[in-house]
């Protein structure tokens, strides 16, 4: 997960059906959700929270060239990615997932729209969806942050120091670092549990249990 998610608009899911007849008993097994990105991005990761979707196919609409007029083309990135090992049972039904660039079949570069095709073949569930969709773009190769000029002019110290019986500074600094790290760990993991005390300053007079 690199940086902040990019701006995108998630459209409401569209159910797929055959023919025009719509009845109350109709339970779709496929939903299509389109996500329109603010501007073309190179996608690093798509993360989301599942809600009873069994299989997910991800397609992206890529802009072929660099300009706004270049033609667009659909490409499939992930085909039938399994979110629930058994569509009839709860495993994976409400889990958080991430799909990374490395798992995708094509390079998701210059993407304007992401299409999620969700499938849930089981009749056990009333509905299914994908929630909390976040798209992260790939970090740029050339850093946008400028290195201050004084940093780049520092030269490493090459000559050995005259210690005069003092301990080696590298050894000292590494052991100090270790000790510092240890104290950090002790501080961060400091709970009453580690010391074994359950009272507050010797007092453990309790009236009622709290409901919050």
């Amino acid at each position, binding site marked *: 997960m690199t940086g902040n998610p990019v701006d995108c608009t998630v459209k409401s899911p569209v159910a797929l059906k055959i023919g025009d007849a719509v009845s109350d008993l109709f339970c779709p097994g496929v939903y299509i959700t389109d996500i329109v990105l603010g501007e073309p991005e190179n996608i690093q990761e798509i993360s989301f929270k599942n809600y009873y979707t069994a299989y997910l196919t991800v397609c992206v609409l890529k802009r072929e060239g660099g300009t706004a007029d270049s033609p667009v083309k659909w490409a499939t990135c992930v085909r039938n990615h399994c979110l629930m090992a058994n569509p*009839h049972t709860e495993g994976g039904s409400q889990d*958080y997932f991430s799909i990374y660039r490395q*798992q995708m079949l094509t390079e998701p570069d210059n993407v304007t729209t992401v299409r999620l095709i969700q499938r849930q073949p089981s*009749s*056990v569930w009333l509905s299914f969806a994908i929630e909390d969709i976040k798209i992260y773009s790939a970090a740029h190769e050339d850093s946008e942050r400028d290195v201050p000029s004084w940093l780049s002019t520092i030269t490493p110290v090459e000559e050995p120091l005259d210690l005069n019986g003092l301990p080696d500074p590298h050894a000292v600094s590494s052991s100090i670092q270790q000790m510092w790290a*240890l104290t950090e760990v002790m501080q961060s993991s400091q709970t009453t549990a580690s010391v*074994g005390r*359950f*009272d507050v300053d010797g007092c453990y007079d309790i009236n009622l249990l709290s409901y919050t």
Partner: protein
Amino acid sequence: MMNEGSELSVTIAQIVQRLKGTHLHSQLEKQAKECLHRPEIRLESIKEDVRKFLRATGWERKLQNAVYRELHILPPSGHPEAPLEHTKEPLAYMRKAQASWEKRILKSLNSMCTELGVPLARKRPVLEQKELTSKWNEMGADEPDLSKFRPVYAPKDFLEVLINLKNPNHDHSDGLTARSHWGLIPISLSVRDVPQLREAYPELSLSCSQLGIDDHAHVPPDLFESEHIRIGKKVVDEQDSAAAQQYSRQGSPTGLRAQLWALILNITNDPEDVAHYEQLKAAVIHHDLLVDNLIYKDVKLTASNDDYYFVFEDVLYQVLLCFSRDTAVLEHFSYNSATPPKSYIQGKTGEEEFAVVYPPNGVIPFHGFSMYVAPLCFLYNEPCKLYSVFREMYVRYFFRLHSISSSPSGIVSLCLQFERLLQIHLPQLFFHLQEIMAQPLRIAFKWMVRAFSGYLSTDQLLLLWDRILGYDSLELVAVLAAAVFAFRAENLMEVTSLASAEAVLADLSTLKVMPLLQIFLFANVI
């Protein structure tokens, strides 16, 4: 998959963090420092030589065992976006059910507190402390007035909660279909069927020898038993946790069981552990808790009435009272779907610096809780070691039997698996019992919640718990429950009421656990 390498690094970092600062860590450092004086340690290859020394003197094995133990209790790794509560229990409706169940328990405890005018916790006056110290080893002799106290809940109350679990996204509109639930548990969790169980438990198969079957009186010991004991002694000598766990799958010999279980659970009984136990004992002397009365009542009602366990009454008090004060147990709430109850001292509700956990270990005992400890009394007579073994077994296994979660070893999965196994392999029996309003789960639930403690004879129970430790899972509890029904199926087909069904299954003390499991898993035609 992309993230396997980074997941492993995270796991390693977590375990290193947990082991840093432990007694083992300081002992290892001390050993490494002291070995520098030895002649075989050369300066040029100091790292290698120290490592070799630690390996030869058994310290590397101790570290391996400690790492192995940490792996057992490592909280599940969650997605970076997932909040902690989701990592403990991913299904929202189960979290909600657990929270409302906990609220009910808290309300019940609070009302008991106000009705009886007994405080949840109070400091004992000095005289009372002295008195308790003097009769520490015979707390059972004292008969405090417990008539006003009642258990906070019994397993059957918990069963009603599980039956009423509801997934809001579950489609019930179809009525009775192939997929609908004609059992009591309305949840679709993934549970294993017999072919999958056969693959998961190959050491229980007909072609594999094991204790509980092949150590029977008429089987010559040379065929299996002697060799198995010899290997067991070797495992104990090697002090290898992982090997002990694998060995236990075929059963532990009675003479080695205590050592093997301590090895599997990595109970080292260091001076540090003894000091910790003494600290807990001091905490019992200083403070009197309301839950102590619940423990007394539970022991009096269950273990003291049991032919096998009544002799251990005093020890049970010692273990359970200390257990309630042990804040180290709070660690297991990082992977338990439950939340420890909270309170505020001196009435300062809402002010976080006065917030405390009640009881200190966060676990409110229910009717039958003491039966988790009772069988262990046969294995360990030093209270400190007995305590450590029980605590480790609780934070690895027993907690799953009384909290609502979707874990495969959780009580919900066990109930569902029990029902499914019966429905698939004994459909006529299941249908018959349902017709006479004797739902099988209503009878089997109390066995499973206690992992059969108090229902089987002790030697058989210990053989079952050998396998729970060996396979690191409670699944066999559900399989055994189904196997018991299969064994008594003929009688059960004849009964016509819930009461008679319960009578058929009232006495399990003559059952032999391993043959039942073996026949059910490997000898049934499927």
